[in-house]
Every structure is written in C-alpha cells, then in structure tokens.
C-alpha cells in the first residue's frame, strides 16, 4: 500500500473529527442568521457567543475582545491597518521574517506614508529585544512580531517584547498562527492573530484578539457584526469549529511527544545524511518544526521525489514558489541562495509516528543520494552563508 505521510502541518492541519462533529449541526439544521430576532436566529447567536466565551476563557481574556475573521491573513490585516488607519500616521516596527500577511500589509502602509522598520534577525532566526528597543521612536505606534516563524519554527521572545511595548506605551500585535500550541497566556499583548486551519480546525476562520481599550478602523464595512469591526454574516460552523479546535489544542499533551520526535529526526538526518544542516534554533523552536538544507541539490526535486513515495513536505526553494524567489526567511537568516535552494521543511502533527519518520529518513537518504549523483556542483563553506 502506498504510504501517506503528511509532514506539512504548518501549511494546514486536517480537521479533527470531534471538531467536525461540533460543526455539523450548524450547516443545515441550525442554519439561521445569528442576526435574526426569531428563535432559530437567537439559538445560533447564543452558540456563537458561547464559542466566543470559550475562546476568551482559553486565552485568558474577555469575550468582547475576540473578533472572528476569515483567517490569519485577515486578522493580521485588521490588526495592522486597523491600528494604522486609526492613528493616521506613525511608525511601525516589524521583522524581516514575518509572514507575507504582515510584510505585504506593512509595504502597503508604507505606500500610504507610514514608516516601517523591518528588524533583522540573527542566523538562528531570533529577533533581539535590544533591536526592538533601539528601533522605537517617538512616532512608533505599533510593534508586530510573529510568535513563531512558520518556516524555521523559531519562537520569538514575545514576553520581553510585550513588556517593552507596554513600558513605552506602544501597541503590540503578534501573529500566533503557528503557535497556538505553545502560547503563553501571561504576556502583555494588545492584538493576537490565530487561525483555524493550523490547529485541526476548519479553514476560513480565524480570530483577532483585541484589547478592549484600543480602537481599530474596520476593513470590512456593512451590517456591523463583530462589534462593528468585521461586518458580514458570521461563519457560524467555522466559529463553532474554531472554538472546539482551540479547546482541544489547549488541552492536548502533544508538545512533549512532538519535541521527542522532532529531535530524533533532526539528529538522525544530520548524522546519516552528510552535507546537511538545520535551519533555525536547535531547541527554541516549535515542537513540530524541522527545516533542513541539503547541499548541492534543489528542494523541488527532493519534494517531488518524496511526493512520489507518499511523503508530503514543503520547500523554501525558489523553484517552487510562485514568485521564483527563495524564501525570504532563509535569506534573512543569512543563507546564500546556493544553499537555500536545497531546504526542506518537515512539520509534524498528531498523526506522525516514529516508524513514519524512520521510513522518511530511509527514503530521504536515497533521494538525496540519487539527486547528488546527478548534480555537477559541490558547494563550499563560503557558498553557504553570507
């Protein structure tokens, strides 16, 4: 039987069966518009408000601080543009390794006249709190730093950045899409982005946590749903599913298991496949993230060979991206293009087992070996890092 080893959980996770069950009544049975004043509408309204309460409880915040959106990208857009349009002018601090949802929004805000500082990161992909401190000016209105990086898994010093932001009276947003499982609830943060499709919940749903004391300008105008911050009839099954998924993620004990599997895989691959190295920090990384560069070969080729063997991964190679550019994250951590082309991201999940990983390592050795036999290049140390 063909293997089916999905190692792309950072792209998206499968929908949990319990989550699916929780959503099912809200498609055709409890279909009413939560804005309707009749009994069926009221019943649905009550269900989404209960979901909001649950989400708030898990995040240790108030229900009126949770805004349901269409996903991580919308939440990040609402956080950044919402603050910027409210303040009308000012300076924003972010990092070079943010998700495009933040980076491209910042570029757009720059086109409107806002100033943006893109902090550089060290070779392990960690943002220095000292750099954030130095970047603060009198005009700074917002700091937006991701909780953990989606490509190399590095977890950022969010707690310290939050303290710094608060001390300076600057709003702080964190994109925590990859980090729901490792979220520290005792942090000073004004805005948090989360989404359903990364936590075994449905796609097309996310939240923005917004501190009740701050004002945002909405992006979507209309019927005034979600405290007038996100108009449009609510994605009811999505909201119910998101709350259930977040509840399950906050309760599960996966981290410990995943960290063991992650470290086992990294150690074995680096030992058994010469001319390979880990991207990101060795331990200060998401429990499920592995990102390894294999020298002298190209990522799309590796990915497609693994694909044929029933192993599903992703790559930071330029050849696989729509823009034909290498990953901006690998570029930011100082990898030269030569070496970045051969990077593969393996992101583990609930279904991942040790025998699966042993199979992956075995096949990976073969694939890397055969592609290297075809390759005319042999990178030197100076071709690897800038």
């Amino acid at each position, binding site marked *: 039987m063909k293997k089916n080893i999905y190692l792309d959980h950072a792209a998206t996770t499968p929908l949990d069966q319990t989550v699916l069950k929780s959503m099912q009544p809200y498609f055709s049975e409890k279909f009413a518009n939560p804005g309707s004043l009749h009994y069926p509408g009221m019943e649905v309204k009550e269900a989404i408000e209960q979901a909001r309460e649950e989400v708030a409880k898990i995040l240790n915040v108030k229900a009126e601080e949770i805004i349901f959106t269409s996903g991580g990208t919308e939440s990040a857009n609402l956080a950044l543009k919402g603050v910027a349009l409210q303040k009308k002018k000012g300076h924003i601090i972010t990092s070079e390794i943010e998700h495009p949802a933040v980076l491209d929004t910042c570029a757009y805000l720059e086109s409107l006249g806002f100033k943006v500082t893109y902090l550089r990161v060290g070779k392990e992909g960690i943002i220095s709190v000292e750099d954030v401190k130095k970047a603060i000016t009198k005009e700074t209105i917002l700091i937006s730093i991701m909780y953990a990086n989606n490509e190399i898994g590095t977890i950022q010093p969010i707690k310290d950045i939050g303290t710094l932001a608060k001390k300076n009276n600057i709003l702080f947003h964190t994109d925590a899409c990859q980090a729901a499982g490792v979220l520290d609830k005792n942090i000073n943060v004004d805005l948090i982005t989360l989404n359903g499709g990364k936590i075994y919940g449905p796609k097309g749903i996310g939240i923005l946590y917004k501190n009740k004391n701050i004002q945002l300008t909405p992006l979507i105008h209309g019927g005034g749903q979600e405290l007038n911050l996100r108009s449009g009839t609510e994605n009811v099954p999505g909201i119910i599913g998101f709350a259930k998924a977040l509840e399950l993620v906050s309760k599960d004990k996966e981290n410990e298991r995943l960290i063991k599997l992650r470290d086992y895989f990294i150690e074995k691959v680096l030992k058994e496949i010469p001319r390979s190295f880990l991207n990101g920090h060795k331990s200060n990384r998401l429990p499920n993230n592995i990102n390894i560069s294999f020298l*002298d*070969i*190209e990522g*799309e*080729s590796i990915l*497609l*060979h693994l694909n*044929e063997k029933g192993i599903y991964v992703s790559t930071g*190679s*330029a*050849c*696989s991206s*729509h823009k*034909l550019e*290498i990953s901006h994250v690998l570029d930011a951590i100082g990898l*030269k*293009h*030569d070496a970045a*082309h051969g990077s593969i991201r393996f992101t583990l999940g609930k279904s991942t087992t040790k025998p699966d990983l042993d199979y992956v390592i075995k096949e990976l050795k073969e694939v890397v070996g055969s592609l290297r*036999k*075809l*390759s*005319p*290049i042999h*990178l030197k140390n100076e*071709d690897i890092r800038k």
Partner: protein
Amino acid sequence: MSEEKYEVKGYSEKGWLYTDKVKEHFFNPKNIFKTDQELEEFKKHADGYGTVGSPACGDVMEMFIKVKDNIITACKWRTFGCASAIASTSILSEMAIGKTIEEAKKITPQDIVKELGGLPPRKIHCSVLGDQALRKAIEDYESKN
C-alpha cells in the same frame, strides 16, 4: 519565445504540474553517470564539454559529448536544479544523440519544451538552459578539432 503554445494549463488529472514526459525523465533520467568511475572515464574521453548556469540561481547544467564523423554518438550530463531542469537536460541528451553537429547546434529551448509535451511557463526561462550547455560542448569540440 512562443511559450504560450506549449503552456501546460493547470494540473494534470493526477494533480501533477508536469506532463508524463517530464515525470518520466525526472524519475528515470537518461544518459546519466551511474558511478563516479563512469563519470571520470567519460570525462577523459569526451570530445566536448560545456556548462551553464549558477548555483545561486538554482540551475547548473553540464554536458559531455562524444563525436564521430561529425555526428554526436554519446551525450551525458549532470544537472543541479528542479524537476523541469533535470527533465529538460535528460530529454535534450536523447535529442542530441544521432544528430550532426550542425543539427544539434540548432536545438532551441522551444524544441526541448515541445519534446517534453510542455512546461509551466514560469519554468521555461530558468530551467531550460541545456541547449546552451550543449552548444558550448560543441564549441569546445570544434575548438579542439
């Protein structure tokens, strides 16, 4: 370049971005060196050698040819790059063998793409470079003879 003509629109039914011909050459590349000894041996007796591309750009191709009576009798290669780069060099090696020097020089990227049954348009510029490596190998041969 008339890229549109050979454009692969979307994915094939199996969900693949590439044609069956690309897959065949990517998974079972032709005219490759099976061992290091084979590479060294072929290198020693090759009549022409050419290389093109750079590791930073993500594609490097090299071609070795043997020529007899103005006809390419053997053509071997190595490629660093994505699936379309590997497949296009592989199919080019097949196209080159049996051709006269003059014919082989005329092979264009479009000919390679056509032979592969098409490539995604964005892949053509960067991954179909083999014809340049072949031409360099032929020039190398000509300069020696």
